[in-house]
Each structure stands twice: as structure tokens, then as C-alpha cells.
């Protein structure tokens, strides 16, 4: 079962399609919201705060980088003399099996500038001494010069990869974990929460039982159980994080629908004989959407942070996936070296805080504007 998951998931196109579908959905929702007065006012209030404005544009920047990294293609392989390599049997050009993304193309100067091993940020020489041929014959031990001196803004890691490149590539992993989980959570939470709150009685009982059972297992333990069985991987992680965060949103939505059911406009619609489905979609769902939005933005940051912890515990993304969690893991061994290699940890810190802090600030302002009484932690 887990092989099917990972097999599907490793197919680059499935990931890309999901990411593109997600962004299309976001644009569609944003366009829909612009037409409603209530949301326009709320967003105007949010954007009046300079901090929220900055946070929004930073989040947009991260999104653009993640999208650039999601548009992938397989370039032709080249021979050493620069000609296109041809397959001997078919005569066609050989395609690079790993594939490149648009972000890789943009970052070509630092992606291809590989060093031998560690080098400090903006250094001109390697971080460790090596035996080299001295000009007058014999050997000396000295720091050898870098192939690309002063090119690496954040230094290089153990195998000579540029740390800035790794940090930028991790954005996509972080955004997928934050955003794809949200995409999985919202439909279920919205459907079950609204239906339970509106219809009540046995439907409510069944749904309440379902989310109480799931919600009574501490998230970290449920994630551990799930990931031990399905093995680590990005898709499994998104799935189980969706399952664990579904219950909280569902509970809040059920409570809110309970209140809305008694409101005058829903009663009026019922008195006029409007179909139940129509009441749900026209009168109830639009009026709980603000809760969905606030919890999504605030939950997003929690998931990005959780990835690092879970990857460390061996229940996160696979070892070969480039992610901030993997970077922090590597940093553990690097801090034990002497002299200390600190730049990978610093890069992971700056890039995660750069994403999570704006998400938190923006989410807070959004909550203050849309529903100040909603309690979130």
C-alpha cells in the first residue's frame, strides 16, 4: 500500500498538477471574495496595518519561489563537448531523468558551483586544510582556494552544495506540507462540520463520535503510529497531518453552524421553503468561511514547524527530500565539529522564521479583522 503511495508521489507530474490545482483554487477563491463587500472591508482593514502588508508580500514571495520550483521539465543531456547526447538504439536525445525546475534554471550559477566540502559564507578558501603541491616542490598543508570563490552567500555543506540553494529548494517542501494539508483538510472539515451542525440528531452524533475518537489521540502519537506503518514520505505526512488537524476545525465549524441555524435569515429561508442543500451552500457555508481561512493560515505555520521535528524523529519526509528539517538534522553533526560549522543551521533558522513569522502575523491580523472572538492558540 505504501509503495503505491510513494510510487504515485514520486511521479513529478502528479505533484505539479496538485500544486497548480491548489494555486488555481486560491486565485478562484480570492476573485470570489473580492466581489463580496464584507470580505473587501475586512481585507482593507488588514492591509491598513503595515506589518500585515509586509507579511503578505513576504508570503507571496515564498509562494512564487515554491511555484517556480513546481514547474519542472526534463532537459536534454549533453556530452562533455557540449553536443546533445543521443541514445544509441533509437537515435533520440537522452533526457535527464532527474528533471529540473524553473527555480533550478534561475539558480544555475549557485546550483552548479559545487565545491569539494565545507566552506564558510562568502569565503575564498575551503574550511579545512589539505595537502597541496607547494610552488617550489614538496607539499604544504593549507586551506585550498575554492573553485568559485566568494560565490556562496551562505557557504557550502559537507558535499560542497551551496547552502542558499538548499534553503531555497526547501521552500517547496515546506509550502507543500503547509498548503497541501490545508487542501486535504478543508473539504472534509467543512462538509462534516456544517452537516453535523445543521442536521443535528443522529448525523451529528455519528460525526461527533468520529471526530472525538480521532481527536482524543494526541497528534504526535497518531502521526507516529501512521508513519511507522506507511514509512516516511511527503505525501503520507500531508495525509496524516490532515487527519489530525481535521478534527479541530470540524468542531469549531459545527459549533458555528449550530448558532447560524437559529439565525433569522436561515429561519426565513426555511420558512420560504428553500431546499436544505441550498440553505447550506448559500447561507451557512459563506458565513463560516472566515473561520476556515483563519485556521488555515494559522495552522499553516504550525505544520511547517512540525516538519522539522517529525523529520528528526524519523517520521517526517524521506531522507533524500530537500527540506528544512533535513538541514537542521545535518546541522546537529556540524555543530559537534570543531571549529563549528554554523551556517546551515543559521540558513534553516532564517528561512523557516522568514515563512512562519509572516504567516503568524498575517493570520493574527486576519483573525482580528474577521472574528476577534475566535480563540486560537
Amino acid at each position, binding site marked *: 500500500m505504501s509503495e503505491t503511495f510513494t510510487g504515485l508521489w514520486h511521479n513529478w507530474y502528479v505533484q505539479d498538477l496538485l500544486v497548480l490545482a491548489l494555486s488555481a483554487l486560491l486565485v478562484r477563491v480570492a476573485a470570489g471574495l473580492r466581489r463580496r463587500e464584507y470580505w473587501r472591508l475586512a481585507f482593507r482593514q488588514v492591509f491598513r496595518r503595515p506589518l500585515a502588508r509586509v507579511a503578505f508580500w513576504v508570503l507571496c514571495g515564498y509562494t512564487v519561489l515554491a511555484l517556480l520550483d513546481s514547474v519542472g521539465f526534463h532537459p536534454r543531456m549533453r556530452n562533455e563537448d557540449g553536443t546533445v547526447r543521443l541514445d544509441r538504439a533509437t537515435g533520440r536525445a537522452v533526457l535527464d531523468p532527474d528533471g529540473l525546475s524553473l527555480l533550478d534554471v534561475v539558480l544555475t550559477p549557485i546550483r552548479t558551483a559545487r565545491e569539494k566540502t565545507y566552506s564558510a559564507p562568502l569565503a575564498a578558501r575551503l574550511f579545512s586544510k589539505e595537502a597541496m603541491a607547494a610552488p617550489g616542490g614538496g607539499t604544504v598543508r593549507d586551506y585550498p582556494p575554492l573553485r568559485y570563490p566568494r560565490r556562496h552567500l551562505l557557504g557550502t555543506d559537507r558535499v560542497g552544495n551551496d547552502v542558499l540553494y538548499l534553503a531555497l529548494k526547501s521552500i517547496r517542501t515546506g509550502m507543500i506540507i503547509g498548503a497541501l494539508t490545508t487542501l486535504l483538510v478543508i473539504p472534509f472539515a467543512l462538509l462534516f462540520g456544517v452537516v453535523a451542525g445543521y442536521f443535528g440528531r443522529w448525523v451529528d452524533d455519528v460525526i461527533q463520535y468520529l471526530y472525538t475518537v480521532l481527536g482524543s489521540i494526541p497528534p504526535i*502519537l497518531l502521526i507516529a*503510529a501512521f508513519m511507522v506503518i506507511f514509512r516516511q514520505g511527503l505525501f503520507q505526512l500531508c495525509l496524516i497531518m490532515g487527519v489530525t488537524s481535521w478534527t479541530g476545525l470540524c468542531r469549531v465549524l459545527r459549533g458555528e453552524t449550530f448558532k447560524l441555524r437559529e439565525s433569522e435569515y436561515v429561519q426565513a429561508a426555511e420558512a420560504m421553503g428553500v431546499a436544505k442543500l441550498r440553505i447550506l451552500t448559500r447561507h451557512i457555508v459563506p458565513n463560516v468561511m472566515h473561520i476556515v481561512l483563519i485556521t488555515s493560515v494559522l495552522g499553516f505555520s504550525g505544520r511547517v514547524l512540525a516538519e522539522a521535528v517529525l523529520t528528526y524523529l*524519523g517520521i517526517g519526509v524521506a531522507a533524500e527530500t530537500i527540506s528544512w528539517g533535513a538541514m537542521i538534522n545535518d546541522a546537529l553533526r556540524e555543530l559537534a565539529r570543531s571549529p563549528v560549522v554554523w551556517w546551515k543551521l543559521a540558513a534553516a533558522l532564517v528561512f523557516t522564521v522568514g515563512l512562519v513569522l509572516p504567516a503568524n502575523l498575517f493570520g493574527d491580523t486576519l483573525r482580528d479583522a474577521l472574528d476577534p472572538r475566535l480563540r486560537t492558540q
Partner: protein
Amino acid sequence: MLAYIVRRILYALPILFGVNVLLFVLFFYVNSPDSMAQTYLGDKRVAHEQIENWKREHGYHLPRLFNTRESFPACFTQTIFWQKSIPLFAFRFGKSDLDDTHIGAAIRARFPFSLCVTVPVFLAGLLVSLFFAMVVAFYRATYLDTWALVICVLLMSVSTMIYIIVGQFLVAIRWRLTPVSGFDAHPVHIWKFLVLPVGIGLISGIGGSVRYYRTIFLEEINRDYVRTARAKGLGEGAVLFKHALKNAMIPILTNVVVSIPFLIIGSLLLENFFGIPGLGSYLIEAIAKQDFMVVRAMVFLGSVMYIVGLIGVDISYTIVDPRVRFQ
């Protein structure tokens, strides 16, 4: 009161049963005993008899839900569900499939170590964050409030991993103020090993809780009775610390009481980094070794603790708020 508690516990039973069934499906259907045997015996080229032998030794050769070979009582009892899942209700967790140690005994031996870390973090964290939250609420809508909030959000935005790694590196490795990791239960030495993990646990949690308690206080401050108290001429300090704090106890209790039972589970990361042999590191070792039965036992224990916490919240309401009746 007693009848109320008994009723609450009876309500909790169906939920625990649901958790048990969920774990049964996850650990015996999704991950079948055959694939479990394969994980332990090595993935490649295991003879069919080897797998059957392993299953017989560990009691997985039985049918999962219904044994067609047996007559009435035995057709239900001679099954994996009866033998492996039902005993969880009596906290009999069975043996680990890897080394045949009793899981229940290991949990009993390890949980005091977890409490050594989590209880100080919990108590100190509660006091410190309530204090700061009240100070911030006292200076609400000033620059102090704004900046305190920004610092809180900043503290929340840093991964716990970073706090631990940097804290351990600076305090224990660079400045050599505390041991890097390890544990000694001797009462004279114990504090040396605990001071760093407790400190780090405190800092990593404080941002979120100060912000949360601040919103609770601010909600209370805008109520009518606070306006009445001010109109009577009470000082801002008396209003905040006497009137608002008492009424804010209810939402604070919800948050506090529900997390008390979790203290037993321990902190996975802190225990792992500082070599404290509690339940958190037990779980991490089980994950690394793929010890399915230990993970299952810990998940069940965790949800029992959550439900105990919820019942505790309800009971504490009746003590704090005289308006709440036992119904």
C-alpha cells in the same frame, strides 16, 4: 458528585473503544501480521514457514476477528482482536515483538523520569506566562503591548529543534555549565541534568501561552462587571488581579487541566536530546526500531490520558464555577 464522575467515565468508554478499533485496523489490517513478520525477519527472501513460525510464536497466527474453527465462546476469544486489543482496556500492553520485554513494566519504570522534566516545565511555564500575560494585559494598547506580542510571535516562529540545538550547544558544550546529556536520579545530582532541558522547554513554550492568556484576560477586561468595578473607584491593579483573574480561571483551567495527564507522556525531543530515559525516548526508540506494539501501546495510553484530562476539566469546572451543576 461521585455519580457525576462515574457517568463521565461511562461516556468516555465508547471513545476509548473507538480508539482501540482504530488502532486494531491500523496495526493488524493496514499493516498485516505477515508484513510485520517480514519487517522483523528481514525484507528479502524469507521462507513461508519462517513467517508462520514467527506469527505462531508471537500469537499472530489466529484469525483477526472471528475464528471459524472454534465453537461459541472460543470463536471470539481465539482471535487477535480478543487477545491483543481487548487487554489494552486493562492496561495490559503485552510484550514487545522485538525483545520480549513487557511494555507495561517498561512504561511504569520510565514515566517518573518523564515527570521529572515535564512537571517543572509545566508549573514554571504556567506561572511565568500567567504573570507576563497579566503585565501585558495591564499595559494593553501601548507600545509595550505591541512589542510584547511581536516578541511572542517571534518566539513561536522558531522551531523547538533550534531552541534545543542552540541551547545545548551554547550552555552545555561551549560554556560547560551543565552536562551535555545523561541522567542521574540521585536527589543531589538530579538538578544538574534537569536545569537545561527545563529551561529550554520553558522558553520554547512561553511565546504561545503568553499570547493565549493575554487574549483571555483582554476578553474579561471588556466585560460589564469590570466596568462596574472601575466605576466603584477600584484601582486598575485590583480590577485586573482580583476581579478579572478570578473570572478568567475558567478558560485558563480548560487549557491547564487538559494538559496535566499528558505530562506522563513526556517531551519527545527534550528527552531524546538530553538522554533522559522517560516515555518520550521510549517512543522514539520504538519508532527507530519499528516496534509496532510499543507504538500502539503509547498511542492508546496517550488517548486515555487525553480523556482523563477532559474529565478533569469538567470536574474542575464544578469546583471553580458554582453555576455549573452536575447534570
